[in-house]
């Protein structure tokens, strides 16, 4: 199922590029190479993995296409985990993270990251929807409509 494999790409790319953004900026700002790599991959890889899972859920019909609430919730739940992984990696390697040590506790860290994850989720959806629009989604829908009896997620342009 080549089309299904293609469908996994938008979520992964969106998540990974978001993580790399951090690394790219660290590079522009002249941070040490090791720090750039760890901070970029520490956030980029988990976000990419969550992006793949998002696409898989979309594919399985667990998340409706283009709806805001589910993806916002997804962002609230997954973004704090990605950030925590990044902070723990940086702390383990360089002795201190970015903001974890400034928060009053892990819980308040996670709550704050969850709120930012809400924003991340919405932004993710905006980019993701556009990539899907021009990628495999249309072909996939057409194929799925013809071949299977799986219920279609409602994406109807005005």
């Amino acid at each position: 199922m080549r089309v299904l494999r293609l469908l996994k790409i938008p979520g992964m790319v969106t998540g990974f590029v978001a993580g790399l953004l951090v690394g790219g900026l660290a590079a522009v700002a002249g941070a040490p190479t090791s720090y750039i790599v760890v901070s970029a991959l520490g956030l980029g890889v988990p976000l990419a993995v969550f992006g793949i899972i998002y696409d898989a859920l979309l594919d399985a019909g667990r998340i409706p296409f283009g709806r805001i609430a589910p993806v916002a919730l997804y962002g609230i739940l997954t973004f704090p985990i990605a950030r925590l992984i990044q902070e723990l990696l940086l702390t383990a390697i360089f002795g201190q993270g970015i903001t974890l040590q400034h928060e009053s506790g892990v819980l308040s860290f996670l709550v704050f990251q969850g709120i930012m994850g809400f924003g991340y989720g919405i932004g993710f959806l905006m980019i993701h929807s556009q990539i899907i629009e021009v990628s495999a989604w249309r072909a996939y829908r057409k194929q799925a409509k013809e071949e299977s009896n799986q219920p279609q997620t409602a994406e109807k342009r005005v």
Partner: protein
Amino acid sequence: MDTSRGGASGETTEQAQEERVWHAGREDPMPIRKLPEAPASLHILGPGMLLAALGVGLGETYLWPRLVILFGPEIRWLFFIGVTLQGVVMLEMARYATATGESIFFGAARLWRPIMWLFFGIAVLVYIWPGHVALGAQAFESLTGISWYIFAIAGLILIGVIISFSTIVYNVVEAILSTLIGVLVVGSSIIAALVGNLGFVWATITGLFTFGYVPKEVLSGPDAATLFPLIVGAIAFAGPSGMQQMWYTLWLRDKGAGMGTYIPRIKGLTHMDEEEAMPSRGYMFDTEDPENMERWKGWRRWVHFDAWVLFWGITMLTTIIYTVLAQSALQIDPGIREAILADDRSAVLDGMSGAFAQAGGALMGGLFFVFISVIGWKMTFGIFDAFSRGQADMTYYFIRPTQRFGMNKLYFVFLWFVILFGIAMLFVTGEEDGPAAILDILAVLSTFAMGAYCLLLLGTNNLLLPKKIRPNIIINILLAFAAIFYLGMLAYSYFRFGAII
């Protein structure tokens, strides 16, 4: 309403419907047609998204962070009021556009043509300047060291090329603006996640509800004459500023929302041969027909989603993120406040960028500049498209000899005019005068336009639409309040301090 349901289908229906019209104001009556069904799903892609994408701009990322740094997050309640009123305005703009398929400019002409020409004039005065793209390019210069003129001119030409080579212009504008705002929201969420903390979010949210808080120095004292107009301008920049709401009606039409489905769409230069004949006015549906009214309810649901979830929600979200960023910047570098008070206009940009560079272990110094660049360009992209749509719309319908050129050609005449004028202006404007000076003038005229269109909406939606689909009394009161809010502040600023900027 002087209508009755047409025949069953086909030609008979057409003939029957041609005889039935809705008389609205001074222009040609609107023929009665069936209201198409509203889309079943509430999808993220829509004109509301486009308005949010255009609206989230320098107000949210530049003017309001400046105010937060000066006065604290409590000043945000004014933003809350401003954006909420804009949500109401958006619903009413959509009411007219979805019910008629006409732009609000056409509605203005139905009341009295000079009102429409007033907006035509304001649009020219306010929107032909390349202020946004220039400020964006300046931010890019701070990052790369390469002269901002090059980025600004390249950015302007890019806008013309992208739109000229598109098939359906609206689709391309929607795709580009949605993607860029997505990148912006993702990027700023990540930065805020790296510099902020929970306390900042709490201060931001409570700040949105500290109704009535106005710092003393804004109303009296040596700096009041500078600070009060600054606040007035910033309120005008809360959400979609100036005439952006009016252009929303044009996007609704091109999206095919409501009766807009009967109006052809604007195509790219390379697809002009496919242009369809433009009707000489909009359409109305039979409000006595229960099926039509059921569909109307569906469209109102769609528009409410557009206004409150897409527009209001996304704007408030971005605001919270940028208020967190501003507070972080102030905490890291308290010197920003003094720099802003000393009227160093670029202090916010430099200060926030510098503060983030210190905060995140040099992680984020450049990102703020990248965002401002992206915002500057996308604002110009969206505004130039919308400006050209609006001016072409008014020119086509109300300067009759131009109709032989067609709406499409007129759109591109305005588009390339504004691009070439922008390039010419960039060569003329000195760097010392700075694009920020242009933005302040823009803010004042924006405030006036916003007050004026609230009054216009009271007229169009209460006088031109059938009774059953007119706004209720609460909406009318809110519109009147909005008009007083915008025009009153502008007048107070002028008479109290003798300054409008």
